[in-house]
């Protein structure tokens, strides 16, 4: 069963016909080719599919597609301004927070939310804020480094 929804994706207004059975993850990946949005578990346990919905990091795998109607959605594809990387993208590279890269886009979205909050966070607080993202490569250390560094810039 299809339904027409309208939402903003990375700053661009879109009208999309979706199947009501689709998750936002499926809408973004399969219909709109936003393949930065990764599926790691399908049940909201790993955070690889996190996107910003109205500025808040949420798991798109447990978000109904129809609910995206009227929302402002951002993915990692929209972080850079042309060739210019965002502060968090740069700090993830410089801090060595990227290994296999599968958890990276989701983490970047949460890091971006923190950056845009304008607040400051201790390393402990950063650990809490990124605790919805599982990563098996880094032991989180350099991810915390990256977020800390990005918040300071």
């Amino acid at each position, binding site marked *: 069963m299809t339904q027409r929804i309208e939402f903003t994706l990375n700053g661009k207004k879109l009208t999309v016909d979706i*199947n009501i*059975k689709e998750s936002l993850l*499926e809408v973004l990946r399969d219909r709109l080719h936003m393949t930065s949005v990764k599926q790691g578990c399908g*049940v909201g346990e790993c955070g690889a599919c996190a996107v910003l919905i109205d500025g808040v990091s*949420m798991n798109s795998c*447990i*978000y*109904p597609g129809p609910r995206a109607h009227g929302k402002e959605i951002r993915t990692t594809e929209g972080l850079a301004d042309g060739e210019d990387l965002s502060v968090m993208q740069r700090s993830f590279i410089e801090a060595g927070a990227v290994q296999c890269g599968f958890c990276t886009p989701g983490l970047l979205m949460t890091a971006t939310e923190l950056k845009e909050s304008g607040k400051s966070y201790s390393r402990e607080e950063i650990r809490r804020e*990124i605790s*919805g993202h599982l990563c098996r490569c880094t032991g989180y250390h350099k991810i915390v480094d990256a977020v800390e560094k990005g918040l300071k810039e």
Partner: protein
Amino acid sequence: MYDISSYLNAGSTDEALELLQNRPEARIIAGGTDILIRLREGKHRGAALVDISGIEDLSRVWLDADNTLHIGPLQSFRALERNELIKDLLPGLAAAASVVGGPQVRAAATIGGNICNGATSADSASTLFCANAELVLTSPGGERIVEIADFYKGPGKVDLKAGELLTDIIVQEKDYRGFTGHYMKFSQREAMDIATLGCAVMVRTSEEILEEVRIAYGVAGPTPRRCPEAEMALKGTPLNRENLDLFAELVKKELLTRDSWRGSKEYRDHLAGVLARRGLAKLTGQGDCDHDTEN
């Protein structure tokens, strides 16, 4: 892909009730963090999802003229943990909200959904048990009010009839005024976990006397539960170590913990005593008892 037959948006409570009526396949979706997972597991096949997340009336936290606290069931845990009124009046609930899942889950999941799922592990439930919360259940025929302890009927079973909607969570002034409260989630991980045992404590003291102590546990039985006998035994007693130990012993007797592969009965009973003692000590300003017990 979720195996659903339709997805219906309700803009108001009335609209939601209308959509729920005469639709046995209807399932309410609020935050969605639970029902979508169950759909993925193959449950509720062909459900008609009624999305109530857009009903603004159901997501307010406010005090009425009688100082009764109203918590809109669509309050997300993210909003609850940051809500000043909740932090002030029911700090235990704010603490519970802050340890649900992880940030993404807290941004989506709602307190109403947490309760209506009927899970004994619901982090928000124990504090609501302590606060004698009442639930307003609305149907086209009107409203009925159920105490939270009566609402829970068994694992995953609640007193929510077909066509009914949870529209308000109420806490009377007598159940928060003068109390301090805390929630301790004991789980293997510090985030993204389900409680091995959850424990909410509320206490009202005067001088060094425990005027009233309330305690409720999640995962200590098929539903969250209070320990009325232990609470009664401490009423009006002086705050001292003997009484803390007594309290710890008494709560264990009242619980109906069970063995499961997630934790043994013996361990849960032991933890129940430790958390009772530590929780009470923390709220009465005794020692460094909160030290890493919880998340």
